[in-house]
């Protein structure tokens, strides 16, 4: 290694990128000249150029390479390509004809844009072809053939359908609601048929559902999304969804899809729900266009869509439509679009059947089950959490009301009690099964409670904090620790903001927060938080706050001790800097306890 100067990587990079920008033939000559007398440098750049030119760049980032689609007139397998009739980011579609004259039927040939290089992908295309070609249904566009070209492009040959996307069709024809629902039922039957044959569509959207001039629905591209995905490195594939350019259509993608996890028939049910939404409302449930990816994820995974009837309640929309949607159709759409797959319709057939029931005027499944049934289920599932939540809330209201009566004090207290009970009423009302979809769980109640709390009691940080603490405790019992932790942090901030730092519950809230930190192995934060809890308890006692029992601070000390022990285990003996603040807090508390004794 002596005598050879190391490569200057800036120079290598400059030569490499410059050569890339030149036409092939020119690049070679230019590079040879630029590297004259430096064979090492020359070899290095050549090697990089060769690697760059290797087909099927596995490391590519979405959108960094352009793959030219084949020109009209080229021959793929037994088919000659005609005019380009459609092109998207992932595929180009051509009119096509069979060259051996086996049959004259005009076909559509879809060529997947990204080349697949490895043999596995080609095998997968063949396997998939067998499955897809077996799908024969009046509302499914049949796959006639599929293969992989020499250059690694997968292509699919299908019936050529002359039709318009379903949403355009409905709008242009001003199709009445019942007509739209009939079309939708046909789609459900097609999707159900495919599901029974083990095929998940994965990319249901209006562009893939065409209606012919005579009003027949045809669903395109069953299972194609899976093939498109097959060319990718599953797992560590950069940029799959990094910039919202993933294989799915954000508005129609289910929560599990935007998270990139398990896709099942239930994901198709979700997409059908979105489609039904768009068909009856005339607008999509979420506006995702132009939003950053994490915002789309948040919308799809966390935000409930407005009910269809709510979207049609404005001026300029016939009231009759609003009336027609309220109730059954609201419930059907929202059930199909439930965030959790298990709360959606179990099959596309069930969804179609509910639409049929609605058209026939019989009760729909989506609006069942009864309140009694729900209450029983709720209790059976989460007995402890439900009961303690109920007790916690009741105790809180009673406490507030009692204060008001006894002392006849402050109007503020009375207002607070009213605000709190209004808030509780809202939470339970919104948990009413006819108002939302499917069975209600304690988790739902808590989620709704936590969300409502942000708005309802914004004017009263102290009451807000007290309720947050109650809800956080329940979350903690349900083992939803992240939510519990977030609420506790908010509650503490609210108390701080209200200047109410001696509040009795603040000590308990901080203790629970510390526990959660400790369970999560975050000992440093645990100890800091617990020290704060002890401080808060100390202050409350000094002010004569109502902290009747001594058990509270003792429990806090026990938790802190455990956290400290665990933390000690990780740092060299005797060097733990966290002992000092904790000791200070404990000493202060001990003083105030002994004061009380006297």
């Amino acid at each position, binding site marked *: 290694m002596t005598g050879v100067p190391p*490569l200057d*990587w800036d120079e*290598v*990079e400059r030569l*490499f*990128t410059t050569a*890339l920008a030149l036409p092939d033939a020119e690049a070679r000559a230019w590079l040879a000249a630029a590297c004259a007398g430096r064979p090492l440098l020359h070899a290095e750049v050549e090697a*990089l*150029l*060769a*690697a*760059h030119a*290797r*087909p*099927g*760049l*596995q*490391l*590519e*980032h979405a959108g*960094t390479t352009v793959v030219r689609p084949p020109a009209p007139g080229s021959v793929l397998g037994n088919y000659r390509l005609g005019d380009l009739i459609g092109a998207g980011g992932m595929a180009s579609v051509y009119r096509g004809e069979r060259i051996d004259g086996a049959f004259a039927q005009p076909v559509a040939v879809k060529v997947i844009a990204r080349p697949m*290089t*490895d043999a596995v992908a080609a095998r997968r295309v063949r396997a998939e072809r067998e499955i897809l070609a077996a799908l024969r249904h009046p509302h499914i566009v049949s796959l006639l053939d599929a293969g992989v070209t020499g250059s690694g492009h997968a292509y699919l040959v299908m019936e050529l359908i002359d039709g318009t996307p379903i949403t355009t069709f409905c709008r242009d024809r001003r199709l009445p609601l019942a007509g739209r629902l009939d079309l939708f039922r046909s789609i459900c039957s097609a999707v159900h048929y495919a599901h029974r044959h083990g095929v998940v569509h994965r990319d249901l959207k209006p562009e893939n559902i065409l209606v012919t001039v005579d009003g027949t629905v045809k669903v395109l591209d069953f299972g194609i999304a899976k093939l498109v995905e097959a060319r990718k*490195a*599953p*797992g*560590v*594939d*950069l*940029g*799959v*969804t*990094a*910039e919202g350019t*993933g294989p799915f259509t954000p508005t129609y993608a289910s929560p599990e899809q*935007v*998270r*990139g*996890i*398990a*896709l*099942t028939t239930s994901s198709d049910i979700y997409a059908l729900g979105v489609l039904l939404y768009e068909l009856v409302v005339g607008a999509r449930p979420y506006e995702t266009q132009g939003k950053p*990816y*994490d915002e789309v*994820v*948040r919308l799809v*995974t966390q935000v409930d869509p407005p009910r269809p009837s709510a979207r049609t309640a404005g001026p300029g929309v016939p009231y009759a439509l609003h009336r027609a949607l309220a109730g059954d159709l609201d419930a059907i759409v929202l059930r199909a679009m439930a965030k959790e797959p298990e709360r959606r319709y179990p099959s596309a057939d069930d969804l179609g059947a509910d639409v049929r029931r609605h058209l026939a005027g019989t009760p729909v499944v989506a609006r069942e089950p009864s309140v009694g049934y729900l209450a029983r289920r709720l209790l059976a599932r989460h007995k402890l959490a439900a009961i303690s939540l109920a007790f916690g809330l009741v105790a809180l209201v009673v406490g507030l009301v009692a204060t008001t009566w006894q002392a006849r004090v402050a109007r503020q207290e009375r207002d607070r009690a009213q605000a709190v009970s209004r808030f509780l009423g809202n939470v339970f009302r919104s948990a009413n099964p006819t108002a939302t979809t499917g069975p209600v769980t304690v988790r739902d109640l808590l989620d709704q409670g936590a969300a409502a709390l942000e708005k309802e009691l914004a004017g009263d940080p102290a009451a807000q904090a007290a309720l947050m603490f109650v809800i956080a405790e329940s979350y903690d019992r349900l083992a939803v620790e*992240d939510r519990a*932790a*977030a609420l506790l*942090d*908010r509650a503490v*901030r609210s108390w701080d903001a209200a200047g109410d730092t001696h509040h009795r519950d603040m000590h308990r809230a901080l203790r629970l927060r510390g526990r959660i930190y400790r369970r*999560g*192995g*975050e000992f*440093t*934060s645990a100890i*800091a*938080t617990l020290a704060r809890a002890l401080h808060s308890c100390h202050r409350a006692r000094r002010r004569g706050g109502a902290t009747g029992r001594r058990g509270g601070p003792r429990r806090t000390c026990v938790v802190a001790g455990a956290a400290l022990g665990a933390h000690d285990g990780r740092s060299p003996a005797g060097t733990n800097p966290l002992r000092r603040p904790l000791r200070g807090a404990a000493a202060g508390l001990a003083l105030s306890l002994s004061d009380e004794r006297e």
Partner: protein
Amino acid sequence: MVDLSLLLDRWSRGDREAFEALIPLVYDELRRLADLYLRNERDGHTLQPTALVHEAYLRLSETNGQRIETRSHFFGAAAMAMRRVLVDHARKRRAAKREAPLVTSAEPAFETPFDVLALNDALDRLAAISPERARVVELRYFGGLSIEEAAKVLRTSPTTVKRHWTFARAWLLRALGPAA
């Protein structure tokens, strides 16, 4: 209590220590999420690291109660953490395979055409000759950052990032050996 936005803010102003404090936080969150999803996953489905990073971002920024201003800086930290999550996962899998070859668990895989560990090693070698170019790959590949976002994190121009990226990609492909 650890204040994420404070750390991010300090880091975005060049505080190296804040960055060190940030990594474990983001790492823990990512690993938790990854474990959660891997448990619930069925065979044949895989996790998308970029989607995961975005979700971690959502959760951490939500926990904190306010939107993080320095969004791209978070992703910078997350990219590094994601790399560790994937590498740890791959190591565990490899170890499990070696020690218990008879167990055919339904554990889903981060299957890649070249495995994560090989990429990780190659990336380390690239870092040895040019740390800034390796960092570009980390940000783009594991963090899903765009050229512009990566440029922001690295305090350089998008043109430079793009050039580094093209170069590093070719370099790694070569280091990883012939594809077919």
